[in-house]
């Protein structure tokens, strides 16, 4: 097949992926609303189909361009969406058995891909000399994996904050109804989730009938796991970028906007990890830090390429 045909197939599959994710999103949200297992199965199938289309689209793009398929923002976005959805299906649904976050994840993937095809599309072609290095495989891969896991962590953190607020309201309502136990309180309503022995137990009592989202404690742990998983990968991505910069731009660090923002993102998530280990910052406070980190990640990804002039802003990274 010719390069043009490969490019064509890649583009078509890109669209198939977006529409499958769209269907999956509708399905997941319907599952949240009606709690029917069938809806979840359909949504999952759509997401799986989208993921396959997404993956093949990336591969054919690579065939069309005769190089690794992450040489510019368009390709990077497709890969990011693919890894976020894949990571969600494997880690969140597969390992943690949390089914109710799918809609939000799909929304993120759709947005990423839609923005990419709208604003970043370029016909496949070879790379400019500065990008033509084996470090593109290492540095960009690590950056995509790190960002996709951070993005998942960010989505879960948003849901944690929503669920936490809801649970607190319910606990307040519960407290105003019942006189507080005098001795040997069996229900410690004031303790933060991670200090309560069985975090799920008292909360699930408070949330009976509204189990659409996992408990705040579950979401909190999940967000932490995702971010703790992403952090070393991001660290590695920054280091690999520095090594590459030393080869390509004669210095390992020069406060180029992309470097600066990946550093800012790193610092914020480092702050998050420290906050979780610090009394008084656990729970909501550290969640807000993670959220700021998520925003910083989006700035690192989009704003730096689109609005801030620097070495990374040749229509690539």
């Amino acid at each position: 097949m010719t390069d043009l045909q490969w490019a064509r197939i890649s583009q078509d599959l890109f669209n198939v992926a977006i529409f499958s994710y769209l269907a999956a999103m509708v399905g997941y949200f319907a599952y949240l609303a009606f709690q029917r297992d069938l809806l979840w199965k359909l949504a999952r199938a759509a997401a799986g189909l989208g993921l396959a289309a997404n993956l093949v689209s990336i591969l054919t793009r690579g065939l069309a361009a005769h190089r690794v398929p992450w040489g510019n923002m368009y390709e990077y976005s497709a890969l990011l969406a693919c890894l976020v959805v894949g990571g969600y299906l494997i880690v969140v649904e597969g390992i943690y058995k949390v089914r109710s976050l799918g809609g939000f994840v799909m929304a993120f993937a759709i947005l990423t891909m839609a923005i990419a095809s709208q604003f970043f599309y370029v016909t496949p072609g070879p790379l400019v000399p500065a990008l033509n290095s084996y470090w593109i495989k290492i540095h960009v891969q690590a950056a995509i994996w790190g960002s996709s896991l951070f993005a998942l962590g960010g989505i879960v953190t948003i849901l944690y904050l929503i669920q936490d607020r809801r649970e607190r309201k319910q606990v307040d309502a519960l407290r105003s109804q019942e006189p507080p136990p005098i001795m040997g309180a069996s229900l410690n309503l004031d303790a933060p989730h991670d200090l309560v022995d069985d975090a799920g137990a008292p909360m699930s009592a408070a949330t009976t009938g509204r189990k659409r989202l996992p408990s705040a404690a579950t979401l909190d742990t999940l967000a932490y796991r995702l971010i703790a998983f992403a952090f070393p990968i991001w660290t590695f991505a920054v280091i690999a970028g520095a090594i590459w910069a030393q080869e390509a731009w004669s210095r390992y660090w020069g406060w180029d906007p992309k470097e600066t923002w990946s550093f800012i993102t790193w610092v914020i998530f480092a702050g998050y990890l420290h906050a979780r280990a610090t009394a008084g910052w656990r729970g909501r406070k550290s969640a807000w830090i993670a959220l700021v980190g998520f925003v910083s990640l989006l700035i690192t990804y989009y704003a730096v390429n689109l609005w801030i002039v620097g070495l990374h802003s040749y229509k690539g990274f």
Partner: protein
Amino acid sequence: MPPSAAGFSLTQSVALVWRTLRSMRTALILLLLLALAAVTGSLIPQWPNSPERVLQYQAGHGLWGAFLQRAGAFDVFGSWWFVLITVLLFVSLVACLVPRTRATWRAVRQRPIQAREIDAFRHYRTIAVAAGPPEAVEASRRVLVRHLYRVARAEGTGDPTALAAEKGAAREVGSLLFHWAFILLLFGVIFGKGTGFSGYAVVTEGHTWVDARANYDGQIRTGRFFGGDFTGVGIHLRSFESDFRDTGQPMDFVSHVDLLDPQGNLIRSQDIRVNHPAKIDGLNIYQTAFGWAGVLEVRDGDQVLTRQDLVLSREPAPTGVPAFAMPWHGVLKVTSVRPQMAIEVELYPDSRALAQQLQTQQPVPMLVAYDPVISYKVWRGRLTDPSPTSLDTTFMKKTAEGVVGGGLTADLRTGKQLDPGRAAGGLTMSFPDLRHYSVLQVTRDRGVPIVLAAAILILLGLLPALYTSRRKVWVRAEAHGEGSVLQVGGFALQRKPQFEAEFDKLVEAIERAIDDGGSTTRVSDGSDREKVGSR
């Protein structure tokens, strides 16, 4: 307890500052401040990255621009407040690390501590075994060691019926390694940048450039502790090649160079291209840019007034025009004649592209040399601008202008191009050849290996710090009839939910191990599981 103002001695205030710096809260706030400072640095144009954008910004922002200038906001990463935050952060880091390292050192060397009441732990089981207490505890020890626990028998008393076990010291050790590595990183950065330098070498094909201060093009950036120890290494540019796609997108630039030692002997030949710097004698040499140098010879009759490979620079392209569609500029100064003479030249390296450009009135990139053409203006008078690249014509008069093609000669008095082969008399300029020049960035940073080592240590420390978890287990056996009753207690500091299953498996393994030596009967079957959940 806040001391009263009167009793607030120097030692007390130092102690207070120290205590504040030691707290994680302070470190956290400093870390977020550092991020905030970096944000400003990315939103406001920075002098070291793009001076022209700083000037533009200042011109457009009047008073605000002046304020930012005073605040050092145009060089955030070199400003006193950025340095202050960094220094405070590192002081705070050391203040946190020293006591933590000492404690960890002690803890790692110390034997695990015995517990008085094992049944008070979150995870607790009792099993009845046929073996006697010492044998049962010995079997437990072997199981725990197999599970990578550090095990200690009851100290002092020599009690063979109790033990304490611990694992997961790697978490704290890793965390310490991660944090200490930043000190190493800082040292590497300061050492490397402090003793290093960076500058540009412009080398024309066929020429040799020698690493010495005077030979650098423009300013060189030197570190604070730079000793002026240039190497004397030579770079001889044999040839330069550039490669473009049809669209004008650059594909590859290569400088084919010979690297020479200070005596001029060949060390080795090498290609320098983007992403593939040359490394020699502590210097890194990078392909940065390239351009054209016109070989020009000015004669007065038989006398050669000057012959040089004139390095030409490209005019900046207006927006929307490809950079390579612009002509190349330079000025040739002849001071030995009266009145002095300056020849302004403008090079069009590709006359086909130029013709196309004139025909279509559209900018066409001139990527290769093909029948190059130079258009020139001759000025006579007094040269007042000492710079080799710029010209001040205040005291000069234009006497002629014209064009000269590659390999041809022009009469500078009339501005007419002479027919090839015709003997030239009077004042002439010939353009025998067009060569490439290559712009190479030459840097030295001896801190790079240290920084790299620090980065590797950071990663190595990070993994156990995030992914291992500490566990403690205690075992005690009491004689019970023929056999004994074994109490097993456990406690996890991280990943508590996972320890539930881990602990169960551990107890089963201990049970099995003792089983191998005799039969076992469970004393408190069922009730132990409830106990686990209720604590």
